[in-house]
């Protein structure tokens, strides 16, 4: 049966901001879904609050709404667009939950919208843990024996049966939010309370602990004719107990025999049929007892998931695309396998390679976070590596991580590997606790004489994996011992997956020596295709990975070609925004007639979809791996400015090896990044900079700081995301900082800037073609100076800056772009204080704000930049000036504090947000309100505001509080602030600080009496108070702000929400409106 003709338009929901547990894999799925629907001729309506995504590019869907993903806002879109159907399975847990709420509240029925793909019954069966357990019992499958509880008493009754340790999982949450493992009653009670709180329906599942069991996942697809295929099997390296998002995982399963695998396959098929996912994909997790083979079914996700993104990339089977086509009525056997193009999609991919996925953590950003991995996901990104063997994929994966190690190598110190010693006892104790450091601890354990058996017993990792790792350690030791590696030795270690950089360290050589030797032997990687069929049929799509074998399948074409380097694993400071830029570049360059070649290692991304570029190399973004591709492909040039710091770090080394770099020259990048050279440039242009200096030693740092005066902003050079950036108020703090900073980036000195307190900050993004410059827009930061630009809320056009300052920033940006000879993107950060415009930094590359600004203004900056890089001129395009922005857009950041208990939520110069949302409207207030709602900070329209601010902030907070008072809010404040406010005619009730006794502010927050918290840091001594307050606010999901400007903006937002109706407008309509205005009406 072909596609459905009874529906003409389909509504698709994205997943909102990137958070831990819900990352850009849903940009991958949403983008595939939009493209698949368009291909079938359906009118496609998309709602997503995340502007950094590719799916929200106005070129993709017919109507793109960047609006909050809440039922009431989506209802507004439904009312306006009247779609025939809603596809709920592509937007992660958020998309699914909102769809279900729309269904339950009767909104879908009211507007005649059908759920396609998975219906409400199926979603509920799969997601409600109790219903799921019952459904599985009906088909004879066991779930970890336990029970459901809606109260602590009920939970304790279940625990009587399961015993400890037990696992507590809240229903209907993503990434395991709020889940935990309890080893005793006290931990149990705590975990149950957290879990009940986290679950939107107040329900937790108490599981029998299957810690130490082997964990597997199957990706399953089914069509409405009940054809079912298994796309991929995945085996977790880490045993049960570690969230699968935090586990190293391997595809296909490595240690299952056919007998066991088929039993699991049968169970998965029975499961998807019983749950009734009609048309689409799902992910099913299993636990297998390592000693008896007992198999339990853990859970099923009736939607596209992180694992399905991984499975798609691992197999070449585009799950989201196929799932979408199934949802609109196709059968699996009616759809072609996109890779072979000759065989149907109704088959099960087979692999002749091994895929290893390794999570990327950000604990360096959150030193206070608990590093132990458990059922709540903590990773912020991941890499995938493809090799012909497990060992090869493992080694490639570790060198893709960009964590400062050249591969799977132990740290310079024990502390780097999270160890206090390396005696057997200490190592075994460490191995018992899964952490991000464990792979390196395993290596130390293997080196220090622990047996496989000891390692396996402590870690519960399967002996087969440990043996593989022992082989790698053995090879490394052997290679180190050689007097001079001959061709055979080099071939051997390359086949095992060792990178040149790691081999260099093993023998204390330079990477270039290792490369020279390898090349002298004529050893280069060969590239093999990911073809879904293990070579059985010819593949039409060049999706490639490197290995060391006889036959190379990558054939260079005669076309003009460009290599685009991707951004590697997501991490804080480098996320989906850069993938957006890379994909935009690939699309634009393809339109310019170039063959596009993408290189990336991140399976969650759109850039690693094989149909985004002409050729995809799924490879680590290291010098070695990129160089080999360049040598084979001989492109016109390499694009390094789209993928953030990852490709940029390679730029000078590539240039030195005569690789042509497209766009802005490497020298210009260096001129902008090098402090001394940049200072000379700014001085030459007459652009003010904050007083600054550069220090390579502690003594020098103190000298510089004393000269320019405290407070100072210190940071290592060449970092993204404000890594190790701090504001330092005195010499003592500077000393303590300096030691840490040196560790953060050993090759580069520390930069010291005068910190401009209470300044306004702004970002400008622009595109230059070497002659003219297009200003993308000026984005004003809502938070004061000192908060990382990636964490600060931003608004475009600026709403509080004086026109002359805005004009000056534009002029400076043009001057800088021209002086640097920028061809492509440039981002400049400014601060305005006491009527002076200072330039803080210049980045001649794609910035985090490019997608936001492109969506806000309608100018596709990244695409334009890519065109300029191949010689097109801005004058050749019809462009909109930045004065014609169709409304007001606010970007708000989203933080992982909920997922990382123990972390302070105070913002500072080090970036800690994982994602962003955008609110766009005709007024600042409404745009701000939308941004807040979309970021998960629903604004109270009435109730009680608590104010506790630093003495110096009291005068400035007063008018803001007065506005809240006039809006009818009750005002509470800590005693000093309350007295101050009362003295100025604002009735304010006093509440106790934490150390003043009870009940105190935290108690009031916890008992739900407070609706909004305004808290500016009270100084060192009150740190604990502040910290407790903000944590309580997060736990109770009470909106809070730590800056006055944000408080004021929130007030505007409340007013807007109270006075205006929920107004939505698609990006396409906004653009049309501007065109009409420009057309002279």
């Amino acid at each position, binding site marked *: 049966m072909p596609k459905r003709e009874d529906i003409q338009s389909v509504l698709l929901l994205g997943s909102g901001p990137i958070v831990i547990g819900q990352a850009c894999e849903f940009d991958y799925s949403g983008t595939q879904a939009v493209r698949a629907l368009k291909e079938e001729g359906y009118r496609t309506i998309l709602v997503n609050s995340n502007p950094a995504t590719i799916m929200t590019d106005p070129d993709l869907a017919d109507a793109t709404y960047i609006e909050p993903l809440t039922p009431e806002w989506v209802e507004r879109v439904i009312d306006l667009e009247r779609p025939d159907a809603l596809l709920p399975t592509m937007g992660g847990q958020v998309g699914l939950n909102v769809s279900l709420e729309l269904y339950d509240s009767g909104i879908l029925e009211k507007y005649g919208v059908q759920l396609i793909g998975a219906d409400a019954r199926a979603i509920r069966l799969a997601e409600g843990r109790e219903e799921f357990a019952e459904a599985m019992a009906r088909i004879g499958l066991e779930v970890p024996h336990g029970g459901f509880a809606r109260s602590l008493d009920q939970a304790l009754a279940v625990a009587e049966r399961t015993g400890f340790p037990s696992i507590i999982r809240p229903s209907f949450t993503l990434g395991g939010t709020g889940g935990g493992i309890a080893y005793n009653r006290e931990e149990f009670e705590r975990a149950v309370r957290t879990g009940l709180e986290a679950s939107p329906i107040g329900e937790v599942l108490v599981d029998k602990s299957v810690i130490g069991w082997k964990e597997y996942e199957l990706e399953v697809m089914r069509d409405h*004719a*009940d*054809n079912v*295929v*298994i796309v991929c*099997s995945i085996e977790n390296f880490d045993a049960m107990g570690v969230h699968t998002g935090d586990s190293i995982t391997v595809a*296909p*399963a*490595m*240690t*299952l*025999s*056919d*007998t*066991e*695998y*088929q039993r699991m*396959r*049968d169970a998965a098929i029975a499961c998807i049929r019983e749950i009734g996912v009609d048309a689409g994909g799902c992910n099913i997790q299993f636990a297998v*007892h*390592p*000693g*008896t*083979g007992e198999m339990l079914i853990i859970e099923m996700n009736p939607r596209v998931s992180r694992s399905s993104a991984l499975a798609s990339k691992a197999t070449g089977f585009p799950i989201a695309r196929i799932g979408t086509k199934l949802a609109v009525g196709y059968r*699996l*056997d009616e759809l072609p396998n996109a890779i072979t193009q000759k*065989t*149907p999609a*109704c*088959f*099960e*991919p*087979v*692999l*002749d*390679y*091994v895929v290893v996925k390794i999570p990327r953590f950000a604990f360096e950003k959150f030193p206070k976070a608990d590093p132990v991995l458990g059922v709540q996901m903590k990773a912020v990104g991941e890499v995938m590596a493809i090799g*012909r*063997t*497990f060992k090869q994929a493992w080694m490639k994966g570790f060198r893709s991580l960009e964590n400062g190690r050249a591969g799977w190598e132990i740290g310079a110190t024990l502390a780097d590997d999270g160890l206090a010693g390396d005696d057997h006892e200490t190592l075994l104790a460490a191995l018992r606790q899964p952490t991000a450091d464990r792979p390196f601890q395993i290596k130390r354990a293997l080196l220090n004489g622990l047996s496989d058996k000891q390692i396996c017993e402590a870690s519960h990792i*399967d*002996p*087969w994996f440990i*043996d593989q790792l022992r*082989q790698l350690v053995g090879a490394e030791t052997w290679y180190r011992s050689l007097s001079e590696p001959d061709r055979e030795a080099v071939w051997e270690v390359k086949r095992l997956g060792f990178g040149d950089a790691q081999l260099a360290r093993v023998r204390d050589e330079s990477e270039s020596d290792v490369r020279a030797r390898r090349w002298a032997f004529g050893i280069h990687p060969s590239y*093999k295709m990911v073809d879904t*069929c*293990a*070579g*059985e*049929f*010819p593949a039409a799509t060049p999706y490639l990975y490197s290995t060391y*074998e*006889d*036959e190379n399948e990558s054939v260079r074409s005669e076309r003009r070609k460009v290599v685009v380097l991707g951004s590697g694993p997501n991490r804080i400071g480098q996320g989906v925004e850069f993938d957006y830029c890379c994909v935009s570049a690939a699309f634009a360059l393809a339109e310019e007639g170039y063959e596009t070649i993408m290189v990336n290692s991140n399976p969650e991304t759109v850039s690693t979809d094989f149909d985004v570029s002409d050729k995809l190399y799924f490879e680590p973004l290291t010098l070695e791996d990129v160089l080999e591709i360049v040598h084979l492909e001989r492109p016109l040039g390499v694009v390094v400015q789209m993928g953030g710091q990852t490709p940029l770090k390679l730029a000078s080394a590539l240039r030195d090896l005569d690789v042509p770099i497209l766009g802005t020259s490497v020298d210009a990048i260096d001129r902008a990044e090098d402090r001394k050279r940049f200072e000379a440039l700014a001085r030459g242009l007459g652009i003010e900079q904050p007083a600054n200096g550069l220090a390579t030693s502690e003594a020098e740092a103190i000298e510089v700081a004393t000269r320019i005066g405290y407070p100072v902003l210190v940071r290592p050079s060449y970092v993204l995301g404000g890594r190790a950036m701090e504001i330092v108020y005195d010499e003592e703090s500077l000393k303590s900082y300096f030691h840490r900073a040196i560790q953060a980036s050993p090759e580069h000195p520390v930069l010291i800037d005068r910190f401009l307190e209470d300044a306004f900050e702004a970002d400008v993004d622009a595109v230059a073609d070497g002659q003219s410059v297009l200003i993308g827009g000026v984005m004003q930061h809502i938070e004061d100076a000192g908060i990382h630009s990636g964490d600060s809320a931003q608004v475009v056009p600026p709403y509080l800056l004086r026109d002359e300052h805005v004009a000056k920033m534009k002029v400076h940006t043009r001057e800088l772009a021209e002086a640097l000879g920028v061809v492509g993107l440039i981002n400049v950060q400014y601060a305005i204080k006491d009527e002076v415009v200072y330039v803080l930094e210049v980045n001649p590359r794609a910035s985090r704000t490019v997608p936001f600004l492109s969506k806000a203004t309608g100018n596709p900056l990244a695409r334009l930049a890519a065109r300029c890089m191949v010689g097109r001129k801005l004058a050749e395009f019809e462009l909109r000036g930045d004065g014609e922005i169709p409304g007001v857009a606010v970007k708000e950041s989203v933080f992982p504090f909920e997922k990382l208990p123990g972390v302070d939520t105070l913002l500072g110069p080090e970036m800690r947000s994982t994602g962003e949302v955008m609110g766009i409207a005709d007024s600042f207030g409404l745009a701000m309100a939308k941004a807040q709602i979309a970021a998960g900070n629903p604004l109270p329209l009435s109730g009680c505001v608590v104010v506790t601010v630093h003495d110096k902030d009291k005068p400035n907070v007063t008018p803001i509080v007065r506005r809240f008072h006039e809006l009818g809010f009750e005002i509470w404040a800590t005693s000093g602030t309350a007295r101050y406010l009362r003295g100025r005619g604002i009735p304010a009730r006093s509440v106790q600080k934490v150390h003043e006794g009870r009940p105190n502010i935290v108690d009031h927050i916890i008992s739900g009496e407070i609706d909004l918290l305004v808290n500016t840091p009270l100084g060192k001594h009150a740190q604990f108070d502040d910290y407790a307050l903000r944590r309580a606010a997060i736990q109770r999901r009470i909106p809070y702000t730590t800056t006055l400007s944000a408080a004021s903006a929130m007030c505007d937002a409340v007013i807007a929400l109270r006075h205006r109706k929920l107004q939505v407008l698609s990006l396409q309509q906004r653009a049309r409106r501007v065109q009409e205005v420009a057309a002279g009406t």
Partner: protein
Amino acid sequence: MFEGGLVGADESVALGEVVFNTSLVGYQEILTDPSYAGQIVTLTAPLIGNYGVTTADDEARRPWVAGLVVRELSASYSNWRAESSLADYLARHGIACIEGLDTRKLTRHIRSEGAMRAGIGPADLGVEEILRRVREHPPMAGLDLTGVVTTPEPYGLAAQGETRFRVAVYDFGVKRRSLELLTGRGCELTVYPAATPPARALDSEPDGVFLSNGPGDPDAVAGVARLIEALAERELPVFGICLGHQLISLGFGGSTYKLLYGHRGGNHPVHHLAARQVEITSQNHGFAVLAEGESVPGADALVVTHINLNDGTLEGVRHRELPVLAVQYHPESAPGPHDSRYLFDEFIGLMEKRKPRA
């Protein structure tokens, strides 16, 4: 020529037709499947031996492959069911295995040039000498190998539970799993050597006849016409798998041909025409029955029931009047998906129809 390390066998040269199998798991079932007699099997899955071997997974009393080609033979194994390593198993049975070569290159070579004669031998013998022996080895076309793998003597197998039917099994290289699926459905079996005259096998008046899978060229199997004629005459329910399917087709007038490189793996989509459903199937065949649309040229009595979705080749037939059904693929799986086990139920259904329960 491909170079690799020799594992398992002694210094002699292993000769056979080199083919590839794309199954991700199930190496032990593949090794012991008698249909692979005379073939050197390349496994496209790169890591082999990870979960060891266990007698429970043997499909026959010994491995039948002529040789094995793998990218990496796992040095260790881990699985609660495992009894020994694959390397030990290969050595114990004297199976030559070459490892470490570019199996994907070999697979692509076979894909474009077809399954061909090959040999695995020690390098010091010299390429010329090995090649000479390969050339002396008979090609697969025209080869009847059923006599090599079949049981030397008839034997009986009791039904599991109550005996409902008595089935005569022609062992052309039968897999243990087929027998189990029959006994598990209440069939008492008598398993006959491949060359057993029909009269002898049918004398005991079985309720049905099962024609098993097996190696070699179906055209070369002797006595096919006589066997099928005898079965048709008695209007006995017949179920054929793989070689059995080919013999049934030949017996009713159809013809077979050699595929370029065959179907070997566990992921082939087969369209069950009547049910309008797709089954993911386990396959292992180098020859196929010629079909035109839904008919089998020369065999008007047969109707096409199953089609391979990858290349449109014939995957199953039934007789228009007689209770005869047959499939080219392996519903008994082992290794492979269990999607097609309903066929065993259909066979039981044919016998039930003929002999309703008392």
